[in-house]
């Protein structure tokens, strides 16, 4: 074998060894490092989120416990009757004349699927002061209550009485949440 042929053979052999080494060693090693690096970054992100949660555990649980104490119920019948009674009491106290009060029979899931919602529709008549007092009661209700829709209408120009149409919702804590959430359902 001439010197040139020998050089050529060595170059080809080196090239083949290099390519094989790259494909069989370098690429898998780089892939493995990339995989571990991605896992580490993902883990760091998750860990940071978890640390934030654990660091604020007291605040989170205290807020939830506050909701529990504020009357978040697990029983639909209980929540329904409590809301209806409260509305009736507040309207009487506010001198608001309830013409119609209706609660949905079935509790539907809230938009984020966390709770079950019970919807109430009511119409009433009263002065602007009565409406104001009633709405104050609704806004500061000691249990979960939310105005979904509110419509105030003046029936006649010379009449001080206003028509109030309200759609309200309350929530109940589903039983499956009670297993994992602190305090469970009250």
């Amino acid at each position, binding site marked *: 074998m001439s010197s040139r042929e020998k050089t050529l053979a060595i170059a080809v052999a080196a090239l083949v060894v290099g390519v094989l080494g790259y494909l069989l060693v370098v690429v898998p*090693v780089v892939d*493995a*490092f990339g995989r*571990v*690096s991605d*896992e*580490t970054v993902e*883990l*760091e992100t*998750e*860990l940071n*989120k*978890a*640390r934030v*949660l*654990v660091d*604020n*555990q007291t605040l*989170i*649980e205290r*807020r*939830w416990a*506050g*909701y529990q104490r*504020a009357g*978040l119920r697990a029983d639909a019948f209980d929540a329904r009757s409590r809301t209806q009674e409260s509305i009736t009491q507040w309207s009487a106290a506010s001198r608001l004349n309830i013409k119609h009060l209706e609660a949905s029979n079935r509790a539907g899931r*809230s938009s*984020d699927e*966390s*709770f079950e919602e019970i919807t109430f529709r009511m119409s009433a008549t009263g002065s602007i002061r009565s409406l*104001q007092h009633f*709405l*104050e009661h*609704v*806004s*500061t209700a000691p249990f*979960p*209550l*939310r*105005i*979904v*829709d*509110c*419509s*105030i*209408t*003046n029936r006649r*120009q010379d009449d001080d009485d206003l028509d109030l149409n309200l759609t309200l*919702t*309350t*929530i109940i*804590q589903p039983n499956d*949440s009670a297993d*994992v*959430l*602190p305090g469970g359902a009250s």
Partner: protein
Amino acid sequence: MAKKHTHRLGVALTERSVRLVEVRGLGQSAKPGKASALEVDVTALFDDPAGFGRLLREHLEQQAYTAKHVAVGLCSRWVLPRVMSVVKTNDDATVGIVRLRIEQDFAGGQSDLVFDYQDAPEQGGQRSLLLVGVPARRIEKIIEAFAAAGLDLIALGATALDVTSGVDDGVSVVLEDDGAAVVHQAEAKATHFAPLPCGTARLAAVDAERERLASGVLRIATTAWGSTGGTVGRTQLLDAAGLNEATRAATADAIEKGFGSCTIRPADAALEAARRYGKPGTINLIDSKLALRPTRRMPGYAKWLARAAVLLLLAGGVVGYLWMDVNQKRDTLQAEYDAIEGSAERLTLVRQDTKAAAGWFDERPPVLDCLLELTHTFPTRGRIWVTSLTLDENASGVLNCRADDEETMWRYLRAMQESSALTDVALHQQNTAGRSDSDLVFEVTFTYHPPTGESH
């Protein structure tokens, strides 16, 4: 330690003959096998080693020798003996001293002559060495010739020293096919060695040849060794030439005249050459103790391979370290995450539910605030009254109003637009109504944004 060949040929080379014997085993217990002799002009070896090698190969094939390694004993005519005294020191220093002395004593030094030595008995508190030298070109030719015969030369010594190894102390006269040698032994070591010209073939018939041999032996013994004060001791005749009994006896008789007695012993030069192979301290010109042993230089490609291997090892070490490091980091994070994962999942659920429930507790739609803000925007002049107000849970509202005149309506709209809590204020419908043509009914849409921090 180099491998020792147990199956080998012992060869005794003289100018006239090649004696061969195949042996198995090492040392004196090596068992001889087939043996033969080749009568040939061996000096031709130095002119045409390849031709001599072919001749030898044919003989080996004819005799069906199977050994591939050969230990050779050279006739005394071809070797140059020298006794040297050196100060006692370690072997390395001794080798250095002997090399220097050789360079001083011989014109060509070690480039022309190859030497090896064996220990002789100490003299005067100094270490005494018996050196044997052979021209380097001759050794090269011998190696070439045996290579051409398909043999690997593993040892090259002197027949006279081979056959006298292990004999009684005293003077030994070694008869070879083309001459003789005189070796003196003391303390079971050769102290002196001198070749002696002798027509061995003529010893049987010519009395003068025997007389010449005897006088030569006596001369060497008295002049060379007498000066050292050494004792002559027993005298023996070692026949390595295969002479008959009568010739041996006649030769011994001739030698006895000078020494008083002379015993006769047969000697197999080829067998002794084979047996001396591998014996520590003996002369082997193929693997001389005086040979310069250059450090093995690594070939260029091997250097590159070694560098590549070192680089690969380093790279592998770095990669391994990094791999352990990243894995350890990941494992540490994983362990930390595993420790709080349960709490974190539970708290995530609590937070999600808290957030979802907030709309029914902390973040209720600000209906009352919106109503209050709307009343703040009512104009102080002119008459305007709200006929209906609708608000949805996103605090988007529709306001239907009635006003005395257009100016009052625009004043009200401007007031709403100037309110920081009301956005997207837009007039949608405007019509005249009622008993007066100036009365207007209109519809305004808006979005209420409570000031930051204000919530129920």
